[in-house]
């Protein structure tokens, strides 16, 4: 596997033959344009978050998905109602792409009562169970065993749902990851673990590169140790992601066996919105990856195939800007949460709160 799927570290990625050509999924023009709009939604939303952070309207820790849009956009296109999606703290796109209202997501980041979790969680801890988002998690690696449990329950209850489990390269150093991958492989032998592991390999965990984290840098191949099959995909190329996403989600749904796709991608934004000094990577490296920006790549394809012209692209972007301006305005003007909410939902099964101030 490693020979045919090597990350060249400069943004150029070789992936499996099927993935490279767009493969089995017919990606008609209309569908691609639709997904292009979704990527613009995510990018525009994330840029508005960065602005909100600079203006001091968004506090705390903020992590954006800029540069990685093709990954979640592609995989969540293959989402079916009833599936579970679980990810770490870089979680805004997952919520948006599953259909959470951007206004409620932004309001959460602003710490408002209209937020998706009433202002209690903030950027890293989105939750929207109705839409399939089983949480963004701030404890890196901590969510991985949970996803494997979700997947078992789905099969036990004889549904054909699957769990899309997103994890970062950094999370794979954590013990929780290895414990979970091990049991997932084992349960998968009996068709009891429809879990699709989606590695968002953006090359770094904070300021530490994959090379400085592990001697075995082929992350997907780590799953060999647990009997789980895997492949890599060029995470900057939406069409490639899309093909892998539809094929592998269907496979997992059918077999009940876990599977792994390592998406090779890059976050061109800093790790967190407050990180100004980036000593761990060169400007040149960022620039090289930016040349393969997933949105730029898709625009290029759409233009080349005459699906859209420059004017139409501009129109989509400026419409989205207006939409997101409304979103930010909604968040800004929303009321702060009621203080009773601090005490609500501490225990379930009874509305009696047991503690006292």
């Amino acid at each position, binding site marked *: 596997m490693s020979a045919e799927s090597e990350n060249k570290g400069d943004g150029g990625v070789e992936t499996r033959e099927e993935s490279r050509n767009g493969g089995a999924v017919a990606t008609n023009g209309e569908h691609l344009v639709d997904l292009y709009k979704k990527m613009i939604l995510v990018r525009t939303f994330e840029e508005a978050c960065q602005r909100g952070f600079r203006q001091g309207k968004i*506090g*705390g*820790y903020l992590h954006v998905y800029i540069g990685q849009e093709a990954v979640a956009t592609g995989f969540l296109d293959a989402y079916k109602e009833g599936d579970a999606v679980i990810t770490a703290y870089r979680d805004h796109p997952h919520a948006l792409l599953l259909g959470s209202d951007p206004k409620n997501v932004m309001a*959460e980041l602003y*710490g*408002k*009562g209209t*937020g998706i979790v*009433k*202002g*209690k*969680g*903030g950027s*890293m*801890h989105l939750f929207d169970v109705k839409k399939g988002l089983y949480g963004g998690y*701030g*404890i*890196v*690696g901590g969510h991985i065993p949970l996803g494997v449990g979700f997947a078992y329950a789905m099969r036990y209850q004889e549904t054909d749902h699957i769990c899309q489990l997103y994890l970062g390269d*950094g*999370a794979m*150093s*954590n*013990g*929780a990851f290895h414990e979970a991958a091990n049991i997932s492989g084992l349960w998968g032998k009996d068709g009891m673990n429809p879990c699709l592991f989606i590695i968002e390999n953006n090359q770094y*965990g*904070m*300021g*530490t590169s994959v090379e*400085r*984290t*592990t001697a075995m840098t082929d992350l997907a191949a780590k799953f060999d140790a647990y009997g789980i099959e895997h492949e890599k995909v060029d995470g900057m190329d939406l069409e490639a992601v899309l093909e892998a996403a539809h094929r592998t989600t269907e496979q997992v749904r059918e077999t009940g066996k876990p599977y792994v796709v390592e998406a090779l991608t890059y976050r061109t934004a800093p790790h967190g919105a407050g990180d100004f000094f980036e*000593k*761990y990577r060169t400007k040149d490296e960022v620039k090289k990856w930016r040349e393969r920006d997933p949105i730029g790549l898709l625009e290029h394809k759409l233009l080349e195939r005459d699906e859209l012209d420059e004017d139409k692209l501009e129109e989509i972007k400026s419409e989205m800007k207006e939409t997101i301006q409304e979103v930010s305005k909604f968040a800004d003007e929303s009321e*702060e*949460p009621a*203080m009773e*909410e*601090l*005490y609500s939902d*501490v225990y379930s099964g009874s509305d009696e709160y*047991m*503690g*006292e*101030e």
Partner: protein
Amino acid sequence: MTTKNLLQAIGEGLAEEMRSDETVMVLGEDVGRAGGVFRVTQGLMDEFGPFRVMDTPLAESLIAGAAIGLSVNGMRPVAEIQFADFIPPAFDQIVNEAARFHYRSNGAWSCPMTIRVPYGAVPGGALYHSQSVEAWFCNTPGLKVVAPTFPADAKGMIKSAIRDPNPVLFLEHKRTYRLIKEDVPEEDYSVPLGKARVHRGGTDLTVVSYGLMLHTALEVARKISNEYDIEVEVVEPRTLYPLDKETILDSVKKTGKLLVISEANLTGSFSGEIAAIVAREAFEWLDGPVMRLGAPDVPAAAFAKPMLDFFVPSAEKIEAAMLELARY
């Protein structure tokens, strides 16, 4: 003597110990090249190189466990857990291994290791970047838990922690890192573990506090001295476990009243331990109920600003509690 804030003082203490003892090393997530997320370890990798200052993978259990292995084999590791909230995977290594090594090996082995742990609520920290975890560890004989608040103390205590033959959990309140500057001695000195500090003498009541709450308590104590002529004696344990009971009891025997303030969820917090000791050993001297202030028993310092402000005991709440007790 130059003035330094808390994080600079701890960084300087670390560097000095590394200069004077080649077995001292630092490990943790992004502590090297990046200099730590709070910049405490800034400059250490440049000065001491990658074999003594190590960026580890994201693996807290490993960080604590490897430090144990290093420490029983002649090293003096200083491990950093980036945020206290991330310490649970390392809990097993710290509590079940490090704390018991000396006891179970007939004293043959000890773990001279230090684990630095930034803790406490910060704006926007929410569920996983705000917790106060001291109570989890103050029920673990064999482990020392220290929580200095002022820069000069912290520099002296990081040195003592590194030199101590036992595992030491070194708690640093994140919101106090840059809160104040004070004179910090340049020459070699240390501040002993296990000794409390009396910040201000008083006759009307004793307040015991640490971390951000200590700063607030001192401010309120000054205020009510000016406004009401009420004199609060403020005691900072500095080391939580083992606790310097004597200093606290001496103070309470003088004032007859005790208020303990911390930022942890109130039920089961370490304040309860202090209250129990005083209730038993200074009972005859008490002129009022032993009081505690802490965070409400909810799972997190929630994200929204008003919720955070409500979660952390405020100057107003502290003033009200001090006045209530003083007038009892």
